[in-house]
Each structure stands twice: as C-alpha cells, then as structure tokens.
C-alpha cells in the first residue's frame, strides 16, 4: 500500500512538472488559436476580440493557475477551436492508439522472442550474426520510411492490404484489424530488434548458470530447458524495455498515425499543436504522462509475477 502511495506521489509531481513546462513552451510558439478561429481575412480587431473572449490576453502564469485549478476539479476544458470537451476528444481517440500499440508490440514480441532465443543459443555463430545483421537493418530504417515502403510493397505492388482505411470495431474485427497491420509492422520493425538484443544478452548469461546445467543433467530436451528454465529469468530486461516502448506508444504515434490516417491520440496532439489549441495540447500531455507512469507501474508489478524473490521482498518491507 505504501508502495502505491509512493507511486501516486510521483505521478502528481510528474504531471505538475510536465504541464507547467508544456504550458510555457506552447506559449513561446508564434501565433495563437485566435488567428486560426478568425480565419485569414479577419482584421486585427476581430482577432483581439476573440483573444479577449478566450482569455488569451491575460499573462501566461495566470492562465496556467486557472487551468490547473479547473483540472484538479476534473474539468479538462473545451477545445478552443471545436468546443469539444478535451476529455471526450482524448477518450474517443485513445482506443485507436491503444490498439495500434498492442498490435505493434505483439508483432515485435513474435519476432523478438524466437530470434532472441536462437541468437543466444547460437551466440557468436553464423546464425547469431545473420540475425544481428537483419535486426540492425530493420532497426536503421526510420519508421516513416518503413511505413512508406510497406505501403508501396504490400498494398500497392502485392495488393494484399488496403493503404489506409480506418474502420471502427463495429464494422467487424477483421475490417478493423486490417487497417492496423501495416502501421503496427512499421512500428514493430524497430521495436523487435531492441527487445531481441536485450533478450539475447540476458539469455546468454542465463544459459551459463548452474541451474541450466542441472536442468540439462536431468536429461531434459533443449527446447524444454530453454522455454521452461531459461526464458523466464532471462526476460526481466526485456520486460523493462517493453514497458518503456508501451509507455511511448500508448500516447499514440504521431508519425505513423499521420501516415496511415489513423484517428488516434497522436494525430489529435499534432493537429492541436498546429492550431495552437493550447487546452487540447495540455490535456493530451497530461494523458500521455499519466499513461506512461501507469504502464511502468504495471511493469513493476509484472516483475513480481515473474520473480518470486521480489514478491517476498515486498511482503517483508
């Protein structure tokens, strides 16, 4: 319980720091939402009137304290531009980002775990080097480049998948999932390599442990020794990295969501920044910080599931 309280305190500090910093930073950007609302032909007076109406003419610190006060009471504000409540704007787009993240991480793990195991088992041999080479090639392609290549090859040349048609889940699971395959692959292409390398490094260490020798001395087949004895203790670092990656992606991927026209949190954020829609930017930033801290909290709990030694430590302290 004390552990959870400590976490909550940290979350509050993180959110306070992050929101203050973004508030100030967004304020430094030239132009504001009033120009966007007034349109190109509006006179300076009209723009000033809109600014006064929105309260944008007041000093930045005053506005921040006011926003913070509302936020603490559960009011995240409304978009300056569309008047949509910020909370609703985020929550309606979050499932898209979440699904993208999940599909991407599933792809990354499907590639990382078997290749990480094989690379560790054949460490230093040709197979290991081939996997490393393929991995670094995959990692060094930027995700926007990977996205475009995937569209070009899979969608346009082979015609296996649509380029970019997001369908809500109500249209059927496959119709919905189909739109996520390419963007998730584009993300996974970088993520799996990092997971694979981390798993490989830990697995090499674990395979030299006495308890692996003991498992082999029982006459168990190699696959049994690796999957039942070595994989769990070798996966701690990989779980940590996985948590960081999920934390990064849970707030949406700006580039991938933009390329594949997925209506996720990332796109909401980038559009809000273009429009200088401060209040939406603030909301999304808080949401991302919150998601990040939560994911890492869950990862910490996951260690305890994997490692009984941590469980006891926590019970004692």
């Amino acid at each position: 319980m004390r552990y959870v309280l400590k976490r909550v305190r940290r979350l509050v500090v993180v959110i306070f720091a992050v929101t203050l910093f973004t508030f100030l930073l967004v304020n430094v950007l030239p132009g504001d939402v009033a120009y966007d609302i007034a349109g190109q032909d509006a006179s300076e007076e009209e723009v000033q009137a809109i600014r006064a109406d929105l309260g944008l003419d007041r000093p930045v610190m005053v506005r921040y304290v006011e926003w913070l006060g509302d936020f603490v009471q559960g009011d995240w504000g409304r978009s300056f531009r569309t008047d949509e409540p910020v909370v609703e704007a985020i929550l309606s787009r979050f499932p898209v980002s979440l699904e993208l993240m999940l599909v991407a991480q599933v792809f990354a793990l499907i590639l990382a775990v078997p290749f990480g195991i094989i690379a560790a088992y054949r460490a230093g041999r040709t197979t290991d080097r081939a996997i490393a080479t393929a991995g670094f090639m995959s990692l060094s392609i930027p995700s926007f480049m990977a996205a475009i290549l995937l569209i070009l090859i899979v969608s346009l040349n082979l015609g296996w998948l649509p380029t970019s048609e997001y369908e809500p889940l109500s249209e059927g699971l496959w119709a919905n999932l189909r739109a996520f395959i390419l963007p998730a692959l584009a993300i996974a292409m970088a993520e799996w390599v990092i997971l694979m390398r981390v798993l490989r490094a830990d697995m090499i260490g674990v395979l030299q442990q006495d308890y692996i020798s003991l498992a082999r001395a029982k006459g168990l087949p190699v696959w049994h020794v690796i999957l039942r004895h070595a994989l769990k203790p070798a996966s701690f670092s990989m779980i940590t990295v996985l948590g960081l990656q999920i934390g990064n992606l849970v707030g949406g991927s700006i580039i991938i969501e933009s390329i594949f026209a997925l209506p996720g949190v990332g796109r909401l954020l980038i559009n809000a920044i273009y429009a200088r829609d401060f209040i939406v930017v603030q909301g999304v930033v808080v949401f991302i910080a919150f998601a990040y801290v939560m994911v890492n909290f869950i990862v910490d709990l996951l260690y305890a599931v994997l490692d009984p030694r941590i469980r006891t430590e926590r019970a004692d302290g």
Partner: protein
Amino acid sequence: MAAPLLELTNVSTHFHSPAGRVRAVDGVSVSLEAGQTLGLVGESGSGKSVLARTIMGLLPSYAEIPEGSAITFDGQNLLTMDRKARRAISGPGIGMIFQDPMTSLNPVMKIGQQVYEGMRHHFGTSKAAGRQRAIELLTEVGIPQPDVRIDQFPHQLSGGMRQRVAIAIALACEPKLLIADEPTTALDVTVQSGILDLLQREQRDRGMTLILITHDLGVVAGRCDQVAVMYAGGIVETGSTRSLFARTRMRYTQALLDSIPRLDRPPHERLKSIGGRPPNLITPPPGCRFAPRCAFSDAQCESAIPPMQADEADATHSFACWHPRDPEQTAEEVA
C-alpha cells in the same frame, strides 16, 4: 568379476582459449564397479569438475574431447552415442549434484516441480503422482514440512536445505550412478557432515554407485571404497581407500595429507602447505606435472612423464612417480 559400471579410458578434455589449448583433463583412465564409491580428490583447477562435466555431457561449446577418449557406462560409449540416447541416460542413468546450491536451483521455479520434472519427462509420471513422489523424496532427504516446501521457491530455503533439495532432484530418477561435485564446499561447516552422511546413506540403501568429488582427503577417508587423486588434469595415484592411506606412494598425495590440520599435533605448530601453484595447463611441464613443487624431484622428474605403476603389495593401487615414497616409512620421517 563383473564388468565395471563406469569405465573411463584415456579421457581428455581440452578447452580452446585465445591463449591456446587448455588441457583441463589429460588422459584419465579409471573404472568403477556398481555399488562402489569413488572419491575423486584434487586441488582447485586439477580438472575434477571438468571430468564430472565430461561424463555428464555438460561441456561448453568451446570444449573438445580428443579422439581416443572413451567413457563406457553400462556397456555403452557415452561419447559416441547420439544426443537423444545420451539424454535418456542423464537422469535415470547418471545424476549429478553441483557444488553451490545457491546457484544450481532455478530461482523462479517451485521446488516440487524441479524435483518431479525429470520423472515426468523420463517415465511419463502424472503430475499428481510426481508431486506425491517429490514429497516422499523431500522427506527422505530430511526436509521438514515437505508438503509446504514443495510449493516454495529456492530462496526461501537455507543453503543446507537447498543442497538436500538438489539431492532429492538427483535421486528422483533413481540413477545408477550419482556424481556429487564438491557437494559441501559451499555450505556451512555445521551442515557439511549431515549432507555427506545423507549421500552415504542413500548410496548404501539404493546400492547406487557414487563419485564423490572433493578437495578434502579427510572427507574421502571414511566414506569411499576407492580414491583417485587428480593433479593438473591427470590421475596421479589411485587405489582402495585403505591402501592409499596406509601405503601412500605418490609424493603429491603425501603432500596433500600433510596439509590436513590434525588434532594430535602440538598447538601453534605451523600448518604445512604445498608451495607454489599448479602448473599452467596450456604449456604443462614436460616431465612430472608435480615436479616443480616437489621436494624430491630431480632431472628425470623434470624431463620424463612417470608412467602409472602398481604398488608391490596391492595390484589395484597404482601411482605415477619416479621417486615414490617408501610405504614402510612413517609420515614423520619424510618430513
């Protein structure tokens, strides 16, 4: 005389290292009859653990067993058989106990599962029957509350208890041969004899063959039928325990015996030790491996490797020394 259960013929194990070929085990021949206990004694780095791993088939990929080595177990050559057949022997044929129970048990797997998974694999035992058998085994090796311990993890047990679990794991598949690699070295002195007594009892009750690896000749004295002393990768003296202690011939064995602290010596006497260090196994000395540290060595010792020769009184007792100790002489006179 029945055929030996385990027979090593000219077994060598070499490691490839950047500095060159390390001859960790070099031409070891020894045979062991069913039901016997062999004490394998030597200093750290003498190759005893590597020999155990060689028999067990647990060598790392950079190890090489040169042509001409043969390990015959129960009539089959372990070095030439295919991997699947070899795996079928690990467990029901040969079991092993490792030196450090702090590292030899899987930290993230429950004790019970570690005990019964071998049975499940080799005999297709059901989970329920395996659990039942695991509880019996844990009781047998002296673990209190075995029905509770079975669902615990290794870190919840003390070192001595863990080594008892490791013994239960090795016994689970009823091995014909058990190799215990320094089973008490990592344990508190207070629990060491308990573990050794347990091993001895199990060996006797089950009619099991036991190889007890240790660096302590004192451990071997009361518990083994046969002793082999290893130095720098080779066996330098072997024989029945009685003969080896009563008629010690090899100078190295004598030096080891002299370095055991004894209660019948006057107090505050300086403890004897063997000067120098074991030789480099990449470029071993051309003659007797022990010659550089031996008080009795001469030019012959340094240039030619002494062959194994039988003791005059006991043909099963053999040693490799150019200037063997006169067995009628007492230890006092040598010193």
